């Protein structure tokens, strides 16, 4: 378990679990283990940042613990919380049994009444899990500071219970969509990888890996078409997830070759274009013209 995989090994294992990495990402993942640093992934929405963490968990055969960040996220939802209802019940029960005021505090503040939240649960796993802190830019700055502390010490102090040290150091993946500038301190702490839109070749391989029973020819056509569409001036550039949706719908409709069926191709573009403006921009003529270059 402690053995560190090289870049090529990681790349190979990742493709085995259906994630097609580029070389730089494989390197970053290999360095994560070597240097024991978290990995910060940035990139447009829908380029598969979250998928990286899932694939990483899959290749290490470990659990994926996910913390979805949002505005107002605080320690009680991210780290731990006491189960108040149970505590109160326990106190009442003891009182009614005639224990009187002699309820021991230790009894109420014990493991039994502790609710683990993702961060605490991540450091208490026997086998190092993958901790995915998703969209960290959505959380508040205070939470970011707290996170920084946790990521450097991997220990948590619960006033009533004492300090809990990490049983195993989780592999931490953070993702950010860039809605807010992250602090330099957090950035410095992490390895960094910018997840870009894949090139035609990689996208075609992703399609082949994810959509069963599709021909290489069609996958390549779709990848080339999507690349062309991304180059149009769009408000929302379609990501890999959208490509897969589109592929699935084309396959579902029985399209074997994009050239044969420009009508269907145009009608299913709604899988890729998600605003009215973009939809209006890619007219029938545009899609036919793009198709002409592709297929």
């Amino acid at each position, binding site marked *: 378990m402690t053995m*560190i995989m090289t870049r090529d*090994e990681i790349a190979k294992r990742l493709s085995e679990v259906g994630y097609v990495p580029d070389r*730089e990402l494989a*390197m970053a993942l290999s360095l994560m283990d070597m240097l024991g640093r978290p990995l910060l992934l940035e990139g447009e929405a829908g380029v598969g940042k979250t998928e990286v963490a899932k694939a990483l968990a899959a290749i290490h055969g470990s659990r994926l613990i996910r913390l979805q960040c949002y505005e107002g996220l605080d320690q009680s939802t991210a780290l731990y919380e006491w189960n108040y209802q149970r505590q*109160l019940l326990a106190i009442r029960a003891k009182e009614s049994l005639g224990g009187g005021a002699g309820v021991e505090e230790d009894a109420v503040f014990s493991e039994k009444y502790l609710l683990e939240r993702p961060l605490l649960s991540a450091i208490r796993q026997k086998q190092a899990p993958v901790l995915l802190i998703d969209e960290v830019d959505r959380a508040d700055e205070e939470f970011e500071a707290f996170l920084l502390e946790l990521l450097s010490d991997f220990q948590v102090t619960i006033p009533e219970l004492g300090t809990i040290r990490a049983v195993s150091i989780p592999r931490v993946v953070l993702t950010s969509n860039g809605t807010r500038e992250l602090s*330099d301190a957090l950035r*410095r702490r992490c390895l960094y990888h910018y997840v870009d839109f894949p090139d035609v070749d990689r996208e075609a391989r992703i399609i082949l890996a994810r959509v069963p029973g599709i021909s290489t020819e069609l996958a390549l056509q779709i990848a080339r078409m999507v690349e062309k569409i991304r180059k149009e001036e769009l408000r929302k550039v379609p990501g890999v997830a959208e490509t897969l949706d589109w592929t699935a719908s084309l396959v579902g409709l029985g399209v074997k070759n994009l050239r044969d069926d420009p009508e269907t191709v145009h009608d299913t573009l709604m899988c890729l274009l998600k605003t009215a403006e973009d939809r209006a921009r890619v007219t029938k003529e545009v899609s036919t013209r793009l198709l002409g270059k592709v297929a």
Partner: protein
Amino acid sequence: MTCCGAGHPEDLKEAGGAMLARLIAFANILRSNAFAVGLKETQDAVRLLATDLAARPSSLRPALKALFCARASDWRKFDEIFDAHWLGQGMKQLARVSASGATTSPKTIRELSQNAPGQHSEPGLGEPVPSDGASSALPSGDIGRMEGASRVENLQHTDFRKIADPEELAKAHALAERLAKAMRARLTRRERARRKGRKIDLRRTIRRNIAHGGVPIELVHRAPKPKPLRLVVLLDASGSMSLYTSVFVRFIHGVLDHFHEAEAFLFHTHLAHVTPAMRERSGARALERLSLLAAGAGGGTRIGESLATFNRWHAKRVIHSRTCVMIISDGYDTGDSGVLGQEMRALARRCRRIVWLNPMLGWEGYEPSARGMKAALDYVDLFAPAHTLDSLAKLEPYLARL
């Protein structure tokens, strides 16, 4: 197979010293290119050098890239810098940051501010400003202070162009800074008034009252989290604006200093994000960095294209629901006015308010006739003159209402 074993100790000892020196030099270059590289990163890089990753550039580059980069802009720059340093390719690129700008650009911000009418000794951007004015008013004690006040009054009605005296200019700067402060103070008070919540936070109330055996004695309230107003300033630094640029640069500095959240951009033929440079405490350094960023200032304007860049690359990060975008420009656009209208529409959809300050509006008989201006006006919430401090002051109640 593990790749971090110290595979070839002898090789390392020989190559070690030279490699280390190069690595440290590399880290320094990155730092001067605004990478956030700390001691810890360099240490980790040394560890990487000891592995067989360092054997080939093709594996060393992605390794160091993941380690040293911290943001998307770093990510795009890194390969070039790496190749220049480690492979000796494109060596002249290395000098990009340390020496360019002044020589290549037609006019830099520093020159602009020095060219401002009669302004020979611009006080540093970050230096305490009022000292000049205060010392001139000192001799006559109390009366002097009154005089000072009345002179400020007077200043408020003068067109910036007519301020020739450096002392007066310094005062104009101080006023701009005070104004920014006043705007912020107003906003902060509003937030505090909203602190008391109407709803009860049940979970926290129970938590707080466990000590009382669960009897709710202390109540915890919930209130919507106040979101302070964010001000994004887009300043036109083109030739036609040169008379006003230095004053507005000063104003922006005040804004960045005193607003809780603010961002600043400069544009002429292209757009530059100047917030980090302008936050520099030392005025001299701020100007230095600014002039590098704003290479080409003083030339023509392409407002539409600049706005397009802003919408595409910066808007998502910089703008939230309580953002006011302040564009300071005369609206003389050398680019395509159709683009401007389109981009203004996109911008208007994103942000709360758009304020367009136009120095020309103060001129008698000026009509917003510039083509670009006309295209943009439909989407502007407030179109105001900005040639005097008075007109800036008038904005305060408006901004506070947002």
